[in-house]
């Protein structure tokens, strides 16, 4: 008879079917390659996560959309190196000599037409996809790197360290995000990289840090933290070996939301013409606006729809991937909301 505390639900893995692919080590055969075993373990975690993720149709669809945009980003340099001549198809300096009037409506040679300066819209669209990824991913990595560390440190040490970090977070949350970015970009000439950095730092010390801290607080009081201390583990060991790895799934989730926020912020700032960026989806709309084509109804649709739809699609896709990841990270929420 096995006794179990009454509040312990039977955990997964009690059934023997799940034991099937536990890495088994044949110790009699000399050295064991620990790195290889860890790789297999990581792979198994990934696969288990994936099997939950694919249950979300929307998550899968969103991942596919992100994949398509990634392909677009990769295709631009390829096209420029092969079929597209730079003097015509360069997204910034090109000029479509084959058309008399600009903006020109879609033709075979310019599938999405040209803008008021005679530049190929498709080329601009593909070129910008890469910038959006670089921006989004840089901002997300910075945010999550900072927020995870801040959250873990604040939760672990508590006291003054915690108070200082959390007041800073409150301050940043109180600042109106987009308006602050507008002021900053008006004062300084911000390129894509600096923008990513600023968004990352604001997010990292702001709301994301608070969310990760509250998660870290619940990890900090787990008996396995005490066990690690009893083993002789120092602060550094406890934070980086026990707390942060248990925060990472949630961090990944917030990375997705940060990507959405960063792409959206860039679009707004570019639309207002505040960024020092050569080309982006926001700038494409900005160009249409400056030329007075935004009010022209659907007549010049190719100036606005491709860029606008791309912003909406990629932002939503990252957001929805985040929501689907939520089900992987917080499996308790599963099957409650559909």
């Amino acid at each position, binding site marked *: 008879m096995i006794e179990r505390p009454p509040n312990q639900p039977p955990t997964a893995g009690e059934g023997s079917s799940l034991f099937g692919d536990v890495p088994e080590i044949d110790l009699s055969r000399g050295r064991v390659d620990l790195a290889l075993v860890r790789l297999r373990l990581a792979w198994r975690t990934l696969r288990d996560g994936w099997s939950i993720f694919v249950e979300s149709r929307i998550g899968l669809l969103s991942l596919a959309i992100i994949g398509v945009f990634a392909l677009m980003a990769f295709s631009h340099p390829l096209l420029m190196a092969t079929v597209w001549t730079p003097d015509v198809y360069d997204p910034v300096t090109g000029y479509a000599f084959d058309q008399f009037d600009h903006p020109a409506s879609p033709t075979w040679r310019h599938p999405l037409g040209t803008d008021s300066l005679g530049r190929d819209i498709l080329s601009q669209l593909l070129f910008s996809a890469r910038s959006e990824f670089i921006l989004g991913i840089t901002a997300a990595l910075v945010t999550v790197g900072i927020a995870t560390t801040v959250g873990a440190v604040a939760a672990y040490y508590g006291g003054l360290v915690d108070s200082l970090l959390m007041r800073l977070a409150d301050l940043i949350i109180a600042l109106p995000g987009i308006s602050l970015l507008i002021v900053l970009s008006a004062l300084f000439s911000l390129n894509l990289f600096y923008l990513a950095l600023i968004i990352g730092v604001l997010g990292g010390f702001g709301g994301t840090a608070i969310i990760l801290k509250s998660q870290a607080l619940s990890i900090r009081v787990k008996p396995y933290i005490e066990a690690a201390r009893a*083993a002789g583990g120092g602060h550094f060991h406890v934070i980086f070996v026990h707390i942060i790895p248990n925060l990472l799934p949630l961090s990944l989730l917030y990375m997705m939301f940060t990507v959405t926020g960063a792409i959206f912020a860039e679009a707004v700032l570019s639309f207002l013409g505040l960024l020092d960026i050569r080309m982006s989806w926001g700038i494409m709309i900005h160009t249409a606006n400056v030329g007075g084509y935004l009010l022209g109804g659907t007549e010049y649709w190719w100036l606005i729809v491709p860029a606008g739809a791309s912003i909406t699609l990629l932002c939503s896709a990252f957001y929805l991937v985040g929501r689907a990841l939520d089900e992987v990270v917080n499996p308790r929420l599963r099957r409650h909301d559909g």
Partner: protein
Amino acid sequence: MSGPAGGDALVTVDGLTKRFPIAAGMFRKPTSFIHAVDDVSFRLGSGESLGLVGESGCGKTTVGKLLVKLQEPTEGSITYRFPAPSTGGHLAGSVDAANIKGRQLRVFRRQVQMIFQDPYESMNPRRAVYDTIAEPLLVQGIGDVQDRLDRVSEILNLVGLTPAGAFLFRRPHELSGGQRQRVAIARALVIGPSFVVADEPTSMLDVSSRTGIMSLMQELADRLGIAYLYITHDLAVARYMCHRIAVMYLGKIVEMAETEELLRNPLHPYTRALLSAVPSPDPMRRRDPPDILGDLSLPVDPPPRCRFYERCPMATDRCAADVHPPSEEKAPGHWVACYEA
């Protein structure tokens, strides 16, 4: 080896007290305290096994955590006297636990370990069995990867998780409760401590493997000279494992004696109640709850009188009027805290 420890006790606990404040609001000083451990004193010789028995919430785990320095006492002292080490890297001689800090604390953790009560929560769910057991070796910088792998495999075999290769890289959710408890034991023993606080280490094992693990722990104690503070709520388990037994009630040790003496001649009404619920000498049988009045209460700001007063069938007027009875040696090595004993 049995019998109370003499002057060269490995651990000497004197007046140990731990009070937990009850949160009183954000900026106000707490006014109420849980008296989790209240003026507890005992000694434990090297290689000796002392049982700490009592109901849930009486403060057993807290005593254990104070001993391994996971918590600091509110009052009282803990003194360790380590025999001179044959190799370096160990504390030697008499040390006051309150003064063990920093680098010394890390060394201390090689010599004093704890088997945690809850094997579900005391293992990081993301880490494999190997990582959990090798953690003390890793943070203490003992051996290279291959050495650690060898030592972990060896101890896995020892605690009965065989073949070790099949368990090394499982994660906690791929283990049963009993298997986890074996991992918890392996983690505490892998570094070769001389004193282990074993907090209900076999509570989730079935009867047959419980005996196996208990005799394994005893064998290790004899072979390696490990001393145990063996925490359990089950007198039968304590009888099997321990040279001496201390009975705890609401933060106080109410009776302490050699195992056979305590079982044959219980003097405190609480011990008697516990024993009356142990009808069979068979240590593995399940038992009914003890026959005493009412329920165990939380020791929140308890009145100064005897802690057992509310539930005591022998209580007198004196028990109500006087402070909690002092511990007295009624027979050689048999200590009781009761006016009527």
